[in-house]
């Protein structure tokens, strides 16, 4: 009986889904920077318009809706690994979803957003292509996707029925691609009214990073083990630990790893690392050090263009302290962070200071499972061989180690 009921419900849903996806698009009105009287042309899958902002402003004025301009207040790497554009919307908090919010989640509400595309200096970027799709299971893709260029002021206006968010890519020749998600549904806030997601049509800054002066760099990913409880130097040019632990000659920085290795429980092969303490001290050599930064996760080029001139910390401490069910300390360079480093600092004959600069994108350490006196290290770095040149914008093709790009150990950026 239960199976029959289940089959009936599934069949009902499939039929409903089919009918809804084929129904006339009353709730699928599309308005992407185009006046409403042109809507008949909007069913084509590619829509281009140069007057998005003007249209949006005109529409807002006609409808008496105030124009809000927002800077992205936060850029989080959200669900799906996509960078989420968040704004200080000022909406009232709402613990349990309102019926209108649920209607939006289940069937969709109209959402609108105006994007103001700027480069890393804040200058508007005209004729950048904004491409993506509104999230809405009730609309076929050609009714929810868009491809449009920004106008002379760098703006583009998007509006459509959706069940929560829009994903989009911004691209232009000589710029690094940016990818974002904007949530119309704002979980925890009263964000739905009169068939619309609120705030209605905010204008939000979106950064499209320009290519400046990409150059060849040394770049490499290294995965190695090294001994615990002693400082071990690492030579970026030799891609190895300094002798006697490797073939390196000049240390750019050192690692010192310590841990309290948990015992192996009866019947188990390895220690239980859910009850564990370890630490790693990353030290610069004399005059050198590190600066921790957050990646521009939305961009194909995630770092700043050049290393800062000063402000380097000589030592960074990373630490993990946890019991079986609670993490007390977890200080690490997460996936969202990266480091600039300064090394090989020396005085020239003329008395001026010389230094080399680099960046570390990935830096993961841990305890070796099999060897009780070893730690593991995985590090991806870029190194500029020209003294005092702080430019770290890699051109993506000319690795000075001259690798075979098919080799897994060579990172490629962007």
């Amino acid at each position, binding site marked *: 009986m239960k199976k029959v009921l289940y089959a009936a419900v599934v069949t009902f849903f499939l039929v409903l889904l089919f009918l809804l996806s084929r129904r006339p698009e009353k709730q699928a009105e599309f308005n992407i920077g185009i006046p409403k009287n042109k809507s008949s042309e909007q069913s084509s899958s590619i829509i281009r318009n140069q007057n998005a902002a003007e249209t949006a402003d005109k529409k807002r004025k006609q409808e008496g809706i105030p124009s809000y301009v927002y800077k992205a207040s936060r850029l989080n790497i959200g669900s799906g690994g*996509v960078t989420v554009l968040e704004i200080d919307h000022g909406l009232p908090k709402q613990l349990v*979803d309102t019926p209108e919010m649920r209607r939006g989640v289940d069937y969709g509400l109209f959402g609108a957003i105006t994007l103001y595309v700027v480069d890393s200096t804040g200058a508007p970027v005209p004729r950048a292509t904004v491409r993506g799709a509104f999230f809405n299971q009730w609309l076929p893709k050609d009714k929810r996707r868009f491809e449009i260029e920004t106008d002379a002021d760098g703006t583009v206006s998007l509006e459509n029925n959706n069940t929560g968010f829009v*994903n989009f890519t911004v691209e232009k020749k000589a710029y690094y691609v940016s990818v974002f998600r904007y949530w119309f549904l704002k979980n925890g806030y009263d964000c739905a009214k009169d068939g619309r997601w609120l705030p209605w049509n905010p204008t939000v800054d979106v950064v499209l990073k320009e290519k400046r002066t990409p150059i060849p760099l040394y770049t490499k990913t290294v995965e190695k083990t090294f001994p615990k409880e002693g400082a071990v130097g690492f030579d970026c040019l030799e891609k190895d630990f300094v002798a006697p632990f490797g073939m390196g000659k000049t240390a750019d920085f050192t690692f010192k790893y310590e841990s309290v290795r948990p015992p192996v429980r009866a019947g188990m092969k390895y220690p239980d690392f*859910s009850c564990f303490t370890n630490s790693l001290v990353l030290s610069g050599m004399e005059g050198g050090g590190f600066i921790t930064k957050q990646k521009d996760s939305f961009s194909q080029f995630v770092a700043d263009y050049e290393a800062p001139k000063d402000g380097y910390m000589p030592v960074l401490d990373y630490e993990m302290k946890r019991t079986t069910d609670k993490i007390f300390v977890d200080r690490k360079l997460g996936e969202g962070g990266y480091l600039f480093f300064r090394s090989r600092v020396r005085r020239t004959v003329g008395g001026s200071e010389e230094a080399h600069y680099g960046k570390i994108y990935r830096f993961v350490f841990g305890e070796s499972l099999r060897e009780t006196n070893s730690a593991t290290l995985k590090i991806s770095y870029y190194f500029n061989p020209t003294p005092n040149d702080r430019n770290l914008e890699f051109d993506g093709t000319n690795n000075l180690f001259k690798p075979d790009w098919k080799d897994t150990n060579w990172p490629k950026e962007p």
Partner: protein
Amino acid sequence: MAGQVSVNYENFRIAPCCIDYVNSLSGEKILMAHSLGNMVVSSAIADWGMNVGKYFMFNAAVAAEAFDASQWVDSSSVNNLLVHYQWRDYTNVSWSAKFHEFFSGGTTDDRRSLTWKNRLSSVPASAELYNYYSSGDEVLELFSDTPSSTQGMEFWDSLTWGWFAWHKQEVHKGRFDQDVTPDGTSWAGWGLARNYIYQEPAVTSSWSGAVGPGFMITPNGAVLPPAVQTESVLLSELGEHPVFLRSPASMFANSIPVTLQNELLARGIPALSGPVGFNNVPNLADNNINMNSIDRPNGWGRNDDDFQMRWLHGDLKDMALFYNFKLFEDIVIKGDLK
């Protein structure tokens, strides 16, 4: 997706079947599993002592708390996406996911085992375990609220059919009747025992007559509670008289056979952590590898309007080797497979 919960349970049942074969193999054994296949392998290792040297998990559709209890979050904040939105203003004491805590003091009551927390925690200490997850996985992605059954599934685009499937599986436990969710179950979960349930500072228990903080519960079809409530229960009595769906009856006995415990976990106890295949699991340290961040020297074979260039749930096999070969090179290195 509708059958995912049942499949989850079936994985527990299938697990013993492969033990004899794997244990009879000689040499170092390397096992790889994808998605819910990881439930089979993990259960075989944790419950049946299957002996493997290395175990590679890909896009594992298993709650992270099963491997690392620190990932279990019992906050009722809106940011806890594993809590059904209708339960956000209920004390977490009343959740089926915390039902086991009423019995954690005893050593004989099987109800203390009705949690995903630490269910498979012996696996990382039994094999060299690698978690190949993808922060771009659409099947294991969490929606920013409680998803509906059809959320994201565009009829004409098969690429979207699995979107948020794992999230739906967990938050629709117990919601089959209440939301008419075809992907839901009728066991415990986030289902409510009655239509109307109100928490009050003090109620008189219908069960003990004691007075204290608790719930007033009215039956289906009640017009205006609490005037017509038919049951009051103290918070301290929720172990015996919960406000979540009181089904199946076998869940409310102190002796529960292991197979039924597994079925209860799969069908009636929601996870309170994200899936392993979508996250870095802290106790695996540098054995977590985010496939979405693996270098792609040849670009990517898909730039979709919905998913852009994300490493999706099936891209291990769906994407051409030309694009994802670095994953396989990494597996060869970590597995000593040269």
